[in-house]
């Protein structure tokens, strides 16, 4: 169907508007990093610095343990992804495939955990972690982030498993697989897009956390995550926003890298050809 001129204009206007909404904060972060402190407070603001301070990145990298913070964030995120995927894959698969007494209710009940804000859970979690002597350890983040990720990830994966015909596992079992073998050899390879999307969601959620890191790790600078580390760059009297923006660019890069890595798996249609 051919689009009329008005339809084309409306389409492009919508696309451009959406792109501006999404990309403007990224652009502004970069402008802030490259501006001098004086320029940052100038009114009206400049949309590109007169003299871009490209050395800000090297300066911040040298002055702050950015690499350590990134490493800690990475450990917490990878740990959270691993733990929550292990639980969510099993739970989502069970909810999708097995009918059990109260199964549907249990599935919905899992989601109620998602309704509670992090600020509500942070105190009981703190109490639990301190009784196990975990405060100050990155394990607190792995466990706490998993409590946020697992409910929603379970539902994402259940939805994906529902789209895979049960006959595939039955065929695999007739071919000699155990139920777990059928899941590992047949269902999970087909569910790669669903697994990749869920893992990405889990990674971003863990990477973006501040409240838990601030509560559990504040007295252990060696275990500070990137988000927590950056907030310490805020001074009591003076804040160098350009330095903070430069550090923020470093923090955003791994997410972009992870997305580029997982993107190839985020394709649909892997079950095509299984059925008629």
């Amino acid at each position, binding site marked *: 169907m051919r689009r009329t001129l008005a339809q084309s204009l409306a389409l492009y206007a919508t696309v451009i508007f959406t792109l501006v909404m999404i990309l403007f904060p990224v652009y502004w972060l970069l402008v802030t990093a490259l501006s001098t402190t004086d320029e940052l407070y100038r009114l009206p603001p400049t949309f590109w610095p007169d003299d871009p301070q490209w050395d800000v990145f090297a300066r911040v990298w040298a002055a702050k343990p950015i690499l350590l913070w990134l490493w800690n964030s990475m450990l917490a995120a990878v740990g959270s992804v691993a733990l929550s995927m292990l639980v969510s894959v099993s739970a989502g698969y069970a909810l999708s495939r097995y009918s059990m007494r109260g199964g549907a209710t249990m599935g919905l009940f899992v989601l109620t955990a998602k309704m509670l804000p992090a600020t509500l859970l942070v105190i009981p979690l703190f109490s639990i972690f301190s009784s196990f002597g975990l405060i100050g350890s990155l394990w607190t983040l792995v466990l706490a982030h998993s409590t946020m990720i697992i409910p929603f990830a379970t539902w994402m994966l259940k939805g994906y498993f529902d789209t895979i015909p049960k006959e595939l596992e039955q*065929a695999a079992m007739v*071919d000699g*697989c155990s139920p777990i073998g059928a899941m590992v050899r047949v269902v999970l*390879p087909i569910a790669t897009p669903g697994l990749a999307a869920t893992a990405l969601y889990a990674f971003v959620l863990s990477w973006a956390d501040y409240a838990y890191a601030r509560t559990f790790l504040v007295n252990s600078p060696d275990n500070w995550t990137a988000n927590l580390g950056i907030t310490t760059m805020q001074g009591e009297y003076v804040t160098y926003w350009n330095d903070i923006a430069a550090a923020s660019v470093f923090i955003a890069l791994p997410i972009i890298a992870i997305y580029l890595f997982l993107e190839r798996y985020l394709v649909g*249609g892997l079950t*095509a*050809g299984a*059925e008629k």
Partner: protein
Amino acid sequence: MANISIRNVSKSYGALNVLRPFSLEIENGEFVVLVGPSGCGKSTMLKILAGLEPATEGQIFIGDREVTDLAPGDRDIAMVFQNYALYPHLTVRQNIGFGLKMRGTDKTEIDRRVDDAARILEVTPYLDRKPKDLSGGQRQRVALGRAIVRQPQAFLMDEPLSNLDAKLRVHMRAEIGALHKRIGVTTVYVTHDQVEAMTMADRVVIMQGGIIQQIAAPDELFNNPANLFVAGFIGSPGMNFLNSELRDGKLTAFGQQISLKRATSAQGPVVVGLRPEHLVLGDAPVTFGVRPTLVESLGSEKYVYFDAEGARIADGEEGKSKGLIARVSHTGSLPRNQEIRLGFDPAQLYLFDAKTGERL
């Protein structure tokens, strides 16, 4: 290859009985078709046989071995699914060889057997493709290949042709028949299509409501149906039924008294069955005049629909009936609503008990 013995197997979900005690002895190399309308329990029986569903009660033997509680993979059976269930992430070669790989077969042996199976089923050119790059018929062949490559004790097929178009279905029906003759493996085949059942089976098991109605060879089912359900299910178009009254070896139908040629002691209300192909145009031992309500031409023959007093709609056909049908050889035109003479031989009538539906 092995015989299969199903002994008093039943299945219920709580209070719902989907399969009443089911017993069947299948000979080594036999091709048995389970046929019946949707929900009759035929697919459930096949899944129990495959080990994909547990039986509530009863025992299953394949060969001399009891397999009732064995996992599907330990029963040495192969199954072809209605929707093929090919592994979409594997190539055709990997799909066919999957079962052998799971059993730890040597790699070169897998390749040799996959190549053999591919040659038999003519899928050799597609061995390196993924299922999504195949047509429906090719996928069906790959699904068959996955079954034959393992050289199992028995094949179980769950409506394997129902997703194909009409022409391909006829073709694949013949291919499966030829394949069975060639490799001679005991086969249990489930379908709701009576034509598939009649053309492919050594023996047909007709089921309804989780109960076996009759087990017999195709011709025997057609000629000697055990009850009203079987009589109505087998044959296309289905058998005509009329409510009638039997008194002293005579019954009333088509407005006349008809003397039965065989002795029967039955009295009272009966259902009379008459196959559409046993009705002829013109003279016969019993003739009657009708005005066709509809005439369908198939070229060399015509389906003549007409109404008659006492006409009874077959079970499960409510709302679909266009009255009684005569299937007559006639190449000329038969105008609607103009009286024609139809006739039949009373020896070809079937009688059923009006209450129980059992054959008299």
